[in-house]
């Protein structure tokens, strides 16, 4: 079912963006701030709640939704993502709690 043809390594991307952010903060002055939201860059318009792997990248280990300050998503995508994760939880594709 769920098509993983254009599967991307979101974890990797998140890490990269974190590094970018840090570089920006500690700040050599020449560093220009890039557009940070990985989902914007990938031009994601719809986040499917059935795409478990993609959602898992944003809800690691404990299954908590990754906050925006870490994932550096834009508000629009963070909202879409949160919605999708919550839907996935409802039908037991993702956990509510992990212990």
């Amino acid at each position, binding site marked *: 079912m769920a098509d993983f043809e254009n599967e991307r390594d979101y974890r990797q991307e998140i890490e990269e963006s974190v590094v970018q952010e840090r570089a920006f903060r500690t700040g050599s002055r020449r560093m220009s701030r890039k557009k940070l939201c990985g989902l914007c860059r990938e031009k994601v318009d719809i986040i499917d709640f059935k795409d478990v792997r993609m959602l898992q990248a944003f809800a690691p280990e404990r299954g908590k939704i990754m906050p925006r300050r870490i994932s550096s998503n834009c508000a629009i995508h963070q909202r879409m993502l949160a919605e999708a994760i919550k839907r996935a*939880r409802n039908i*037991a594709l993702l956990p509510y709690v992990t212990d």
Partner: protein
Amino acid sequence: MADKRIYEIVVIIDPKSTEEETTTLTDNLKQIIETQGGSIVKSDDMGLRRMAYEINHRNEGRYWFFEIEGTGGEIAELERRMRVNEAIIRYMTIRVDLDRRRAAKLQEKRTRRSTTRSSNSSRSNDMPFKADDDANEMEEAA
């Protein structure tokens, strides 16, 4: 009311029911939808999956996915039937046409922007970045 609504439905069926039972069950659901005036765009067996948490003392479930076009009336009937059915562990209905419309809009916006950008390239659009760079350089020189 004129516009059609599109729904996505995920149903989790008890893995203990036999192959035959699940097929009759899904056929039954499809029939309900059609008699209520909806049409099935897509129906898909997602197979037996491990659930993220236990529901009704089951750790696995057979997932079925439907995409339905209709007015909303058939959803009410369908959910009523699913609620009383013992073999259905869980179901979820989501309206997707609004999200899709928004996605189409975003995409359109993007294509429009990219075409305008290419038509008058290296003009006002790039200015802010340019200005920024220059400012940085000046600061450094000072």
